[in-house]
């Protein structure tokens, strides 16, 4: 369970998270919505342990992200909005993922194939030289192969063509029921069938929390 209690985070004089309270239990599929600057990405980054809170508390299965980051991140698969320009080759990136997270490389390849991405042909290629769509597919494959209890997606389909999006959504439909997902999105209609809860944020607060 991800528990956020009165989380507050300030950058300069602005509270980007202003007393956010939220609980995400096993198997919940959450759409995290809101305008730019609402605090969605900051909240996700705080859950991933990138930010130290100015107040409140976040725990993932009882572990604090900034204090027990390894325990927390073992449980989470994360896909950023824009694939970063990682200079490692695909082989090296898979080695990093495989050893740090105990993910089977073959599982990554299998997931990638389901997204119609053939990793074998690009193993020695630096990640940043792949096309935008290929990069995003690989990051999705890695997150799915990790088989964590939580999957966090920050606008994951931004670089995917319509066909790849369909593939991605169909893969999500096959996720085990226990897995909880958090989608940061501006277009709930696209993932309407994949979420059962909508959380709307504005000015660092949760202003709407509705089960669908």
């Amino acid at each position, binding site marked *: 369970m991800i528990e956020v209690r009165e989380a507050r985070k300030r950058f300069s004089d602005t509270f980007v998270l202003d007393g956010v309270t939220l609980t995400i239990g096993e198997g919940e599929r959450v759409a995290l919505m809101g305008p730019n600057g609402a605090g969605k990405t900051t909240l996700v980054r705080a859950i991933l342990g*990138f930010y130290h809170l100015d107040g409140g508390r976040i725990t993932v299965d009882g572990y604090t992200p900034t204090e027990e980051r390894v325990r927390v991140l073992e449980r989470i698969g994360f896909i950023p909005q824009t694939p970063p320009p990682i*200079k490692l080759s695909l082989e090296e990136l898979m080695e990093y993922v495989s050893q*740090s997270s105990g993910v089977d490389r073959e599982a990554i390849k299998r997931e990638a194939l389901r997204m119609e991405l053939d990793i074998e042909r690009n193993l020695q290629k630096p990640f940043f030289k792949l096309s935008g769509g290929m990069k995003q597919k690989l990051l999705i494959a890695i997150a799915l192969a990790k088989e964590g209890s939580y999957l966090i997606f920050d606008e994951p389909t931004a670089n995917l063509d319509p066909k790849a999006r369909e593939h991605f959504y169909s893969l999500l439909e096959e996720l085990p029921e226990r897995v909880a997902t958090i989608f940061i999105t501006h277009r709930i209609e696209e993932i309407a069938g994949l979420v059962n809860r909508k959380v709307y944020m504005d000015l660092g607060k949760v202003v709407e929390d509705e089960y669908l």
Partner: protein
Amino acid sequence: MSNLALVAKLDIKESLRSRWFLVYLLVFGGLMALFFITGITDSVVMGFTGLSRLLLVYIQVTIVILPIFILITTVKSISADRESAILEYMLSFPVSLSDYYWGKMVGRFLITFTPVFLALLVGIVWGVVKGAEIPWAVFFIYSAFLFALSALFLGIAFFISTIVKSHDMALGSSFVVWITLLAFLDIALIGLMLQNRWSDEVVISIAMLNPLEVFRVGAITLFDPELTVMGPVAYFLLDTFGREMILLYAVIYPISLGLLFAVAGYLFFKKRDLL
């Protein structure tokens, strides 16, 4: 393999493919080649002959080039990754901050120290092939100096890289550190000494806090045990510390300072927001 070793290994692999490493390799390999071509190993200048002469020239060059090369190529290791969101992705995996930080540092140390050391080794092998007398003591102590200098600037670079959030600021800061240690401190000290008539001991003590000055003095001690080129300062240094202590200080002080900066950088990395 531990995650620390994994991070180090991947950093080395990534660096081996990068353009900066190619330039770095060409600079030090090219320097050594240039020494051979221009006949420095065969020349006799002011009493220094053969390999000793080569080592002396190599020291003069590395004192200028090595620090700025390490600073510029290393300060971006964390700050640039942070700016380009690489850090966000790589640290979304269960790798402890300690493994990531020190792994990066170990990888970067090996990749910056090895070419400089190998270039030196090539010079020695060249000397052996030509049947020259090898100044082994000088070679080993100088290798230790290079190790210490690399460790120092790597520590400073990682410190800058973690406290500064923008890549441009990190580059600017590293340049300021380099020029301050290389020249400004000396100029400022001479100015202070002349204007305020500070005691020689105070000025020399402050100078000996500058690790590049320490490296310079240590290197001179190798070839000129009486430090005659330094003038009256030599009496103070040799009478107070002695040659062995100066050599030991020239190795231990930069390593300790580098380690101090590296640890401070790690604490910043751990205690502050990562992004």
